[in-house]
């Protein structure tokens, strides 16, 4: 027999809180779990009363349908092409711009207004640029091409990248940078050999966040694509127009779209706060 240890009041409060939060968290994730379970049920049983949460009777029917008939691979491929290329573009362009802001001599006022202008572009309602971009790309016969969507995503990721990376650069110890310059490092060398390697973890976080933003983006995707370049969110929204909603299939596509999200959520915890606040909070 264990001797019952007398717990302090503080410990009991802690235990109670852990219990409450644990229940809360489980309830919180219930919708996602429910969608996951639904995606593995045969369509005839996907809707049931009362809701069935037990992980039994699971089949791959819906996945077979979405992979074979709805050719989800095609949409995944499109999403990957657009997301990855736009992430690379916005990172390269954004890091260079952030380098200029962080390490070169700017008039304080010019720099502040430029940076505020840049962030305000990101905060602006995307619908305001989506309509004219749709018309412009239509005129240029670029609707349903990858460059159109990639350009649009590069634009909306860019201000986010500049702000976050600028924040990471500014935090580097000044001595390192100055020492590099005194040693006769060119700016190019300073950038590739000193600044980038020292901020790689932060930049990776930015890359993941911009990837997710592009992966999830809907407004531009639905208007700038037609047939050849449709991305995953467009496929998902398409289920709404079909007669009724096929719970099993839409859940399967939904779950596929969430997988990268979960991976990202696991990896970026360290920088999540600065990532979520454009670097305003470290």
């Amino acid at each position, binding site marked *: 027999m264990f001797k019952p240890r007398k717990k302090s009041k503080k410990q009991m409060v802690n235990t109670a809180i852990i219990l409450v*939060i644990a229940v809360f968290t489980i309830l919180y994730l219930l919708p996602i779990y429910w969608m996951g379970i639904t995606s593995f049920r045969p369509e005839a049983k996907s809707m049931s009363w009362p809701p069935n949460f037990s992980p039994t009777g699971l089949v791959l029917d819906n996945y077979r349908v979405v992979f074979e008939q709805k050719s989800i691979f095609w949409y995944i491929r499109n999403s990957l092409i657009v997301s990855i290329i736009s992430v690379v573009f916005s990172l390269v362009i954004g890091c260079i711009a952030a380098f200029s802001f962080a390490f070169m001599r700017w008039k304080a006022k010019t720099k502040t207004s430029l*940076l505020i202008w*840049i962030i305000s*572009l990101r905060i602006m309602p995307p619908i305001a640029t989506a309509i004219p971009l749709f018309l412009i790309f239509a005129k240029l016969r670029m609707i349903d091409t990858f460059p159109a969507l990639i350009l649009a995503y590069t634009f909306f990721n860019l201000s986010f990248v500049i702000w976050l990376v600028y924040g990471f650069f500014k935090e580097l110890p000044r001595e390192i940078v100055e020492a590099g310059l005194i040693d006769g490092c060119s700016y190019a060398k300073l950038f590739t050999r000193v600044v980038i390697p020292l901020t790689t973890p932060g930049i990776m976080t930015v890359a993941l966040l911009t990837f997710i933003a592009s992966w*999830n983006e809907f407004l531009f995707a639905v208007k700038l694509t037609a047939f050849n370049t449709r991305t995953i969110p467009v496929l998902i929204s398409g289920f709404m127009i079909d007669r009724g*909603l096929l719970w099993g299939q839409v859940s399967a596509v939904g779950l596929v779209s969430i997988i990268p999200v979960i991976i990202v959520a696991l990896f970026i915890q360290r920088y999540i706060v600065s990532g979520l*606040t454009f670097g305003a909070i470290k």
Partner: protein
Amino acid sequence: MIEKRLKYYLILPALIIFLGLAIYPLFFALRGSFFIWRYGMSAQFVGLKNYIDLFKSSFAWNALQNTIVYVVLAVFLELIIGLALAVLMNRELGFFRPIVRTALTIPMFVSPIVVGIIWRMIYNPHYGLFNWILGTRGFAPTGNEYALFFVVLADVWQWTPFMYVIILAALQSIPPEILEAGEIDGTTGWQKFIHITLPSISYAIVIALTLRFMDATKALDLIYTLTYGGPGGGTETIGFLIFRTAFNDLNIGSATSFAIIFTVVMGILITRFLGWLNRRFEIV
């Protein structure tokens, strides 16, 4: 001197992207807003007619009202719940806290399109979780005049963790000495919270509120899959109305005029606010 010009060259690619994909399109939209212009037909110049019609449009006022209710209610609830959760979790909990944080951050990164689908299933009157939890059957949360509140609930589900994560980080960066000083002075828990804790995290709260406010104002994707603005425009926000006018009604002139007003108002609010924030907290 090349050095002097280099700094401009380095931001040039970014500027070109911004000018080409944001500023030029905005001017394009501004021009379009002076025309009666249906997509696929020739445009006819009408001056300010679109803007005047907009002020008379009941759709516009309805959307404005819905947006205000949506934003205020969602952001307020997210702040209160997020704050409460953060305060509750701000203690020694060992490995428990990182697990909860990781779990709670997942909904934030799910596409609002998918969140809309999930909640559409939850609100299903016959098989949805919502009825099951209430113990009712046949109740359609998004099928009545209160639909907007249920859309807000979906937003609160997705974004409360945002407030939680930011506020918790701020709470943990309060130097312990400050809190201990309060204890010596004999303040009660509540007083300590109001006079010491809250002021120390005010910056984080302001930032989190701002970002949520901006994001919620633009809400469109969630509504697209959850209610498509219905029933009867009951959940139609400004963003969704502009989208619908442009791409369902193909009424480009009207949609762009609305988008221009929306952007100008948001732009003024944002730049003034960021200016104030920068003077107060030096964010740049």
